[in-house]
């Protein structure tokens, strides 16, 4: 059974700071997705990475996929209060039917 570990579990920072959160897997990812979940809402897909070493950028968010496809990081530059939420990584499971295996998430709080 694949285990996804995310760190840190909690992160509290001031607006304007940079931060990185991590996702590590006990086995090679089929493909990796990052989600953000705001309180009272469902997770929203941020990015999908597939190829080892891949780097994707989404405005102030930079996603890196490890060369061995067993780890990933999400870096946020100049955090804003709107970045507050639960960040989840997930393995898409390599099937056509999108069964996701999630990590336990990182709860990010950005203070004004």
């Amino acid at each position, binding site marked *: 059974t694949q285990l996804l570990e995310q760190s840190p579990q909690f992160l509290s920072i001031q607006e304007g700071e940079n931060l990185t959160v991590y996702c590590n897997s006990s086995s090679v990812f089929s493909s990796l997705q990052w989600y953000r979940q705001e309180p009272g809402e469902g997770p929203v*897909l941020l990015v*999908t990475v597939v190829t080892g070493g891949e780097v994707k950028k989404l405005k102030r968010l930079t996603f890196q996929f490890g060369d061995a496809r067993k780890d990933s990081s999400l870096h946020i530059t100049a955090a804003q209060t709107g970045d507050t939420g639960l960040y989840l990584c997930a393995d898409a499971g*390599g099937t056509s039917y999108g069964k996701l295996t999630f990590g336990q998430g990182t709860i990010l709080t950005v203070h004004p």
Partner: protein
Amino acid sequence: DTAVSQTPKYLVTQMGNDKSIKCEQNLGHDTMYWYKQDSKKFLKIMFSYNNKELIINETVPNRFSPKSPDKAHLNLHINSLELGDSAVYFCASSQGTPSHNIMVFGPGTRLTVL
């Protein structure tokens, strides 16, 4: 327009009762899911349907019975509710290949069993 909608948003009920949660998607996706998020925010898949056919059935008590009347709807019925069923239940739908799978989640139903 809401892409994936769920009703109700909140559900408070007594142990032993039977309840249903409804889900609808207007995205034209072929696959729909139920996920459960526990108090520690851990999300785990329960069921998946593709074109009304059950394709994923994780280790879930048989008190939970999904039903898909058509590919735009996936409902979840829970019999004999237990305290441990308290959680947030998310419906989701998706379309695409594994490397380009777009999963869209609904807003969740917070179930509290007293």
